[in-house]
């Protein structure tokens, strides 16, 4: 039974899949939906049967953006009181790897949601865009920040100012996505990558994510110190003992995720 109104979730072989489920609205995001997505992610983050989280959308598009009707009549005070973007802050706290499988339109809030993923795989023909400027506003859920950190100020300003559509090839060139695959194989290829991660030592993946994220925000010296602590910390894990013993004994390691 589906506990959610706007998403669907499933769990197979240690991989949790979250699917945006408003295909007729091209998975446009409303507030409840974002709340459901981040809530599901937090549950999977705590669930020890889950090692990797996959985020995708039902239908032809990942997400065409935020639900405009919902916010049309808002004013600064109502937005401040609602504090809807607090839900978006919670994405950054997910510790497990998040793979985004995107296709079709990845626009506005949909693009911001994609940028909350750690790795992105896109179907051929996927188009990205921040069209907010055309509505007299701008991204509000991290678009200007995450995009700039990814592609640099020059490209970010161009894309955010013009609202132009960015092809998957261009997105790949600028490091926004990891890989382009045939649309027929989007899920199959995403699950293959997820399977690879499932077999990696879980604590390494977590602390690598933690350290890489710090590299984006910290000055280099502080980042180096932070990395070191995480490196030391892994020596408290069983998987470190197993990994290094297996290496010395020239056999395949058998990781427990501990």
């Amino acid at each position: 039974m589906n506990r959610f109104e706007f998403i669907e979730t499933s769990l197979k072989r240690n991989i949790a899949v979250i699917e945006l489920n408003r295909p007729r609205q091209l998975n446009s995001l409303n507030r409840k939906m974002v709340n459901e997505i981040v809530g599901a992610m937090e549950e999977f983050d705590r669930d020890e049967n889950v090692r990797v989280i996959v985020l995708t959308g039902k239908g032809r598009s990942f997400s065409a953006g935020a639900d405009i009707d919902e916010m049309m009549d808002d004013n600064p005070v109502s937005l401040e009181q609602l504090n809807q973007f607090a839900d978006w802050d919670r994405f950054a706290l997910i510790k497990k790897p998040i793979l985004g499988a995107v296709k079709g339109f990845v626009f506005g809030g949909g693009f911001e949601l994609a940028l909350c993923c750690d790795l992105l795989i896109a179907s051929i023909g996927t188009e990205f865009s921040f069209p907010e400027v055309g509505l007299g506003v701008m991204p509000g859920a991290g678009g200007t920040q995450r995009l700039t950190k990814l592609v640099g100020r020059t490209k970010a300003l161009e894309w955010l100012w013009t609202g132009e559509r960015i092809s998957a090839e261009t997105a790949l060139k600028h490091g926004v996505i990891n890989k382009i695959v045939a649309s027929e194989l989007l899920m199959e290829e995403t699950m293959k990558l997820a399977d690879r991660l499932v077999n990696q030592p879980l604590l390494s993946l977590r602390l690598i994510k933690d350290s890489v994220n710090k590299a984006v925000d910290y000055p280099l010296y502080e980042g180096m110190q932070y990395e070191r602590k995480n490196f030391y910390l892994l020596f408290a894990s069983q998987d470190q003992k197993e990994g290094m013993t297996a290496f010395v004994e020239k056999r395949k390691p058998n990781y427990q995720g501990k």
Partner: protein
Amino acid sequence: MFETIRYDVKNGIAWLYLNRPDKLNAFIAQMNREVKDAIKAATFDEQVRCIVISGEGRAFCSGQDLAEVDEKMDHGQVLRDYYGPMIKQIRQCEKPIVAAVNGVAAGAGFSLALACDFRIVSERASFLNAFIHVGLIPDSGNLYYLTKLVGHAKALELSILGEKVSATDAVASGLANKLIPLDLWDEEVSAFAANLSTLPTKAIGLIKRSLKFATELTFEDYLEQEAQGQRIAGLTIDHREGIHAFMEKRKPVFSGQ
């Protein structure tokens, strides 16, 4: 629905006739749009397994209608707004597209024929890269396709000298796939399209996709895309049918699925 073209679907084949015979089927903005819309319709129509583009009357297409050109025209913008979207729609289509070139294909009419997968020509057909005669360069993807079809030297010659290529020369130089005698035209065009419409449509689309990758990607990246293409083909019903028919020593019946 359409005014400058005729479009019908019969027996799995979409027939698209450029239909301004008194203007030798010259392009106006509306015809660019209608060709684009028809190709899009055929792309999404599950009945359609082959598309044929031909011209009503004695010409295939004489290119841009010069009556529409004036001094204020921004030629680049016309390409971005009309010809480019039309040619892109054709390029995105993964079904086989045949240009049945019944008469002259000049300028953008030549480009339209080049953007198709097959060019079959009647004895009355000819190709003419006419742009140079009005001081312009071949457009609508013309040189992109032309250099691949006939090579750099011939593409240059056709574009700079702007000489007419007869139907026989077109076949000899690789511009066209097949010459059809006048009296057999309708019959053989139909047979050519009918044959395409019974082949494994998905595999045809994947071959078209792979050929695009072959010119766009490095060899290593190409091999990865090839693997994905073969994976997709391997999942089709037509692949299974092909294998079964081979085992059972009978002719396969492909559904396009």
